[in-house]
């Protein structure tokens, strides 16, 4: 009995090793991105090897998770979806009741590992929306839209309450993209946007003071040269002084002289822009566009609505990371704690991103099996 199990698992592991079922163009692009990330981190951390090594280890863990998830057929994922979604929402509620974390309650301590349940929703949210829409007539009408909206709003509200506006935003976006891709009529989208514009002044009222400050600082960063404004001013100086060709690797004075805060995490893009200039920035953006395009291609190839919507939503959320982070460091958008995917230092986001790519790889690998 045990022997059989052992053989079965050995067989599985061996076949995973021989046929990893990964999409090579996507994998290549991701590895390139991670390489750029590590190189930038090495410079931004002032040649601190230990940070680079620990980030590389997290990438390894993420890649391993990606390979494992790539083996799980989308049909299995689909069957698990409601349970995974429910479990992650329950965990969120637990965190709201008694979480721990510095300043904000985001972390759940499981003795062995501490993790943020909100991170799980980056995957389970698009999965749930895809699962729900998969069973509904498309394009969705108001009722389907309302139900999907509720599926998004509940966890998003819990996360925003933590308060973690950046993650809430990413999760709302991933769900919204699912709805968008399912073919929601343009006039309905227009109506929603108009309603949203009406709600903004009300929402402003409910923001925390520090969140309001971030938006206000954005409008006039020089007014607060010691607090929030400092980040934006210093980041813009870093980016702008980089010029067309950049100052060269490890020659960025802004980060080395510690004028730039959080220069290994949220503001690592500024370091990159300072050292590699506009040319580097445009190449990096092109790399992101390539990854998103490849992912959307995989989504279009999928033969089942669930897989399509899920893959599409994950691909498009990647764009939100890049846009919000890039917008922040150039002073276009408020300071919201969103990392630059696979470049910013930090474990949880790297692992959850790579897990998402694992789902895409799985959809890619099973595209033929899924014919209706």
């Amino acid at each position, binding site marked *: 009995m045990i022997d059989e199990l052992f053989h079965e698992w050995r067989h599985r592991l061996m076949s995973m090793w021989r046929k990893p079922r990964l999409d090579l163009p996507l994998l290549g692009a991701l590895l390139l991105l991670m390489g750029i990330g590590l190189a930038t981190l090495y410079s931004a951390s002032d040649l601190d090897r230990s940070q680079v090594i620990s980030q590389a280890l997290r990438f390894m863990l993420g890649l391993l998770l990606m390979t494992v998830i790539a083996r799980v057929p989308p049909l299995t994922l689909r069957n698990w979806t409601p349970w995974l979604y429910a479990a992650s929402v329950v965990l969120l509620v637990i965190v709201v009741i008694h979480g721990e974390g510095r300043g904000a309650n985001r972390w759940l301590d499981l003795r062995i590992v501490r993790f943020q349940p909100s991170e799980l929703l980056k995957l389970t949210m698009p999965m749930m929306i895809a699962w729900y829409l998969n069973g509904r007539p498309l394009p969705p009408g108001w009722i389907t839209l309302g139900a999907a909206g509720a599926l998004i709003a509940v966890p998003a509200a819990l996360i925003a309450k933590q308060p973690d506006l950046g993650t809430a935003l990413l999760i709302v976006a991933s769900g919204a993209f699912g709805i968008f891709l399912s073919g929601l009529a343009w006039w309905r989208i227009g109506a929603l946007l108009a309603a949203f514009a009406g709600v903004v002044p009300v929402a402003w009222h409910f923001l925390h003071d520090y969140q309001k400050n971030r938006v206000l600082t954005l409008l006039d960063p020089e007014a607060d040269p*010691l607090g929030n404004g400092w980040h934006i001013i210093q980041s813009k100086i870093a980016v702008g002084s980089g010029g067309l060709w950049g100052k060269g690797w490890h020659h960025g004075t802004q980060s080395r002289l510690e004028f730039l805060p959080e220069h290994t995490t949220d503001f690592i893009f500024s370091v990159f*822009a300072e050292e590699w200039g*506009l040319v580097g920035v445009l190449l990096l953006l092109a790399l992101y566009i390539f990854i998103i395009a490849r992912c959307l291609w995989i989504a279009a190839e999928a033969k089942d609505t669930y897989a399509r919507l899920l893959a599409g939503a994950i691909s498009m959320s990647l764009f939100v990371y890049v846009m919000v982070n890039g917008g922040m460091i150039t002073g276009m958008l408020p300071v919201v704690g969103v990392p630059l995917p696979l470049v910013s230092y930090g474990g949880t986001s790297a692992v959850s991103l790579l897990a998402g790519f694992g789902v895409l790889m799985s959809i890619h690998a099973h595209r033929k099996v899924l014919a209706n």
Partner: protein
Amino acid sequence: MRMRRSRVREGRYKPLKEARHEEALFRRRALAGFLIIVACLVALGVRFSFLQIERHDEFSARSEANRVLTRPLAPARGLIYDRNGVLLAENVAAFRLEITPEQVHDLPATIARLGEVVPISDDDVERFNALRKSKRSYEGTPIRLKLSEEEIAKFSVNRWAFPGVDVVPYLTRSYPLGEEFAHTVGYVGRIDEADLGKLDKGDYAGTTHVGKTGIERYYEDRLHGEVGYEKIEVNADHRPIGEPLGRVAPKPGENLYLSIDARLQEATEAAFEGRAGAAVAIDPRTGEVLAMVSVPSFDPNLFVNGIASVDYAALLDAEDKPLLNRLLRGNYAPGSTMKPFVGLGGLELGLRRPEDTVLSTGEFFIPGQSRAYRDDVRGGQGRVDLVQAIAKSVNTYFYSLALDMGIDRFSGFMSRFGFGQPTGIDLMGEGSGVLPSREWKRGRFNQAWYPGETVIAGIGQGYWVVTPLQLANAVSTLAARGVPHTPHLLRAVQRGVDARIEPLPPAPPRKNVIERAANWASVQQGMQEVVRSGTARGIDAGFPYPIAGKTGTAERYSRTGTEWTSISASPIERHQVLFEAFTPADDARIAVIVALEAGRSGAHDAAPIARKILDAWLPGDQQRQAERVAGGGEGAASP
């Protein structure tokens, strides 16, 4: 039903799910989405090129000029005074030893050599290493605080041997009255990891200390002030060059004036002669706390710059728990001090008239039960009315009254006086004690309530637990003929050195908790008899004002057992003893409570301490009364 309707409406597009249609729809949408994404990222690229090409020269220049550091200037922390302007917390100039790691070649060796000139403990080194991590290598990091003059002199002679080590002046918090105010004023301490998450980084840039306990913590926002900054030019090594280029001065924090009278506080602490316990004195007319002590105490100055681990361990391990704030978190069985409140409840709820009597035989039984509830005097105290029952502390009167009242009305009435809830004083971490009730017992033990528990609640025993502050608040409310005032410490603030001292506006008036004034008079008469002829007789000897009081002697072991012998054999220090009082009895200007953790009886141990507190309060009060008469009798102005 709803399902079908939505189908019909959506049927305008397609009657049922259609895979091919959905796939085509998805492809169109994916393309549209991709185009939007590309457009947005192109916009982002344009933004980058605007910053990096168009404004490159400007930002390049600013990057070069980023040799100008903006350095925060910490505001001076507000001072804390007592009601008469006696300084309780001040900022004193001191000197510390700082090391600039960048300029030192071999840090451990330098620290070791430095230790031969100026004593440096392992704690100091540990703290230095922890602090260094959060600083840049060109910034000075303190290794020794509060150098003595001798140490400064010794170091100055050897200064040449220590490049990168400097003596630097700074302001440090000091509590001149030390132990007396450790549990009220509290102390500040270094900002630690936990504080960092709560404090605004901008406001606290340059600030090293933050209020940790007491007034220092509660009024942190008032005391801290506003940060300022100066711009200084630095060279490539981050060394400042020349004068600051620009400066915005910091705004000092507000000075606070507390309602506490430091002389009364001192006398109160002295009256305890080191015995563990707590005392509170409140002005019943306003709720201002005049004195509050928790004995034993500790020296808050030890905590300001990080307490040495040996000292801290000693404080933690001490048997009489000096770090415990008994005022806010001490738990005492209130015992007989509750009898005036229970008696008042009987009158207010219409269960007794003042002249109703009860026969005390020494034992009380719940009808149909055999368990005896005892009186203090074997054989009983005969037939007593309310006044005598309070004066002689006759248990039977209150046993039967509580039983008639029932636990629901009982706890309902007692909560009017704030039992079982925090008083809302302006200090952090107040406990709420326990007011026994059916709901409380169900929540705590998931058990039903028994009538016997109502009986012993009548004499303040059983589950009932109060904090000294709660008791003081209740007595103060009683002294004010039922008008409650939230006890508070902050009396006035001063914004700026020469600014006017602004008294805080009085809190909005609250509803009187006693419905009939005559009921109050009967209870007050009983409390006066306590001092004249009852359990605490003689305690008012020679005192010019009439005193109303009540003793409390709570068993640590229940008296409801059938064995008398265990009680008579018990050692002297087996009781928690209490005394509550207010004076002048008709128009109280002070309410006092004293709680001792160990003693023979309330009358024997706690009442004399209360008398000493009143004696210390008296001269000031007489002076104020005289001034008022001389000043033309303004009526009830503040003392």
